[in-house]
């Protein structure tokens, strides 16, 4: 069986589709007329940081997460470089966003504390839309007494879904509003982070 990309029929379609289409000068003239009616695009000097850093996608290694959990939130300049993600689409040039950007890491550094009481549990972690629902990413720490598990995480402003994973079983947060079951047989909890003093 020939690979379909090399199939003669496909090649014929490609050949035909590569032919130029008829265009008229009038359409180009209309473009230039519209352009001349616009204000001149201003020349902007790029920010110093834009020259120094290329935006790219970062993820925290487990060690990085643990350090943040231990309270080293908001490490100034380094935290600030995490704000971009290459999955952002744009309608205009590369830096203008028409859609809500998909952020894997927070653009604000409001730390949110998650708390869960489970005296009998051996392992508790929090999973949510901020860590890809990965139970290895955000382990919680047990207080010396009382069976109280907690972790602090920086979260972006807005609505976040989450649950606790207690020795492998998912559990909603009894002290938070519920979101409806999304079709997987489990209702998650909702945390709303207010827009604080981000950036």
């Amino acid at each position, binding site marked *: 069986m020939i690979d379909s990309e090399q199939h003669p029929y496909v090649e014929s379609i490609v050949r035909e589709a590569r032919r130029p289409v008829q265009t008229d000068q009038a359409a180009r003239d209309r473009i230039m007329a519209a352009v001349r009616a616009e204000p001149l695009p201003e020349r902007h000097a790029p920010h110093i940081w834009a020259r120094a850093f290329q935006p790219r996608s970062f993820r925290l290694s487990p060690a990085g997460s643990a350090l943040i959990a231990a309270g080293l939130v908001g490490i100034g300049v380094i935290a600030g470089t995490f704000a971009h993600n290459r999955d952002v689409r744009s309608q205009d040039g590369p830096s203008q966003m028409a859609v809500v950007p998909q952020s894997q890491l927070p653009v604000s550094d409001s730390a949110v504390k998650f708390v869960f009481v489970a005296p009998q549990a051996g392992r508790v972690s929090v999973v949510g*839309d901020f860590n890809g629902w*990965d139970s290895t990413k955000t382990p919680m720490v047990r207080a010396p007494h009382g069976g109280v598990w907690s972790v602090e995480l920086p979260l972006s402003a807005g609505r976040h879904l989450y649950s606790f994973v207690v020795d492998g079983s998912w559990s909603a947060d009894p002290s938070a509003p519920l979101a409806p079951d999304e*079709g997987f047989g489990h209702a998650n909890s909702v945390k709303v982070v207010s827009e604080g003093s981000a950036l």
Partner: protein
Amino acid sequence: MNNSSRPSIPYRRRFPVALVAAALALLGALPAAAQDPDPLSRLDPNSKFAVELLIDSATTLGLPADYLRSTALQGVALKADGKRIVDAVHKKFTLLKTAYATLGPVGGEELKAAASVLYAGAKPAQLAPFKTRQKDRYDLDAFVVWADLITRGVPSEEASSAITKLWQDGANDATFNGLWNSVQSDILKGLNPGAALQSRIRETPGRPTSTKVTPPDGH
């Protein structure tokens, strides 16, 4: 590491050790994108393709595609099968479109919360009153509480009319959250969810300064 040949102060002494350790750990994360494969790859190819198509459609329409991706990842984490995941993502996509059609161009977070209200069982017509945008009013908490009430068993009609009325009376986030807290504790004490809502609504003022619920104006 021996830097004795350099005349300047050794780097390490100038910064707290913890900060250096943090910086090293974070720098160690730099190639993490290469180490972490895309969790969606755990899906079978057809399901993965279907999910990516839906994510792309959402993006094209200006809808919060991250919400769909997160749904898929949740399904992967819960080890749901491919078809179930695609169905869940598809349903979310449809509800995002409906929420957008009903509310118009609101922020992504509000749209997700509104879609959740629809998911819980409210009808688009019940969302429609929220289309009238008021400057500086942010409906996130109202929607979150609304979805929660229905999820906990308050009949959809009752929850919708209670939330809408409060909102039209000018209730703010604190009011909605306060309402949620009291209804939730009543339900935990064994009260029927619908009854709990009704009794708490009677006590809840719309505008924070008024002492009784005033009828909605105009409509």
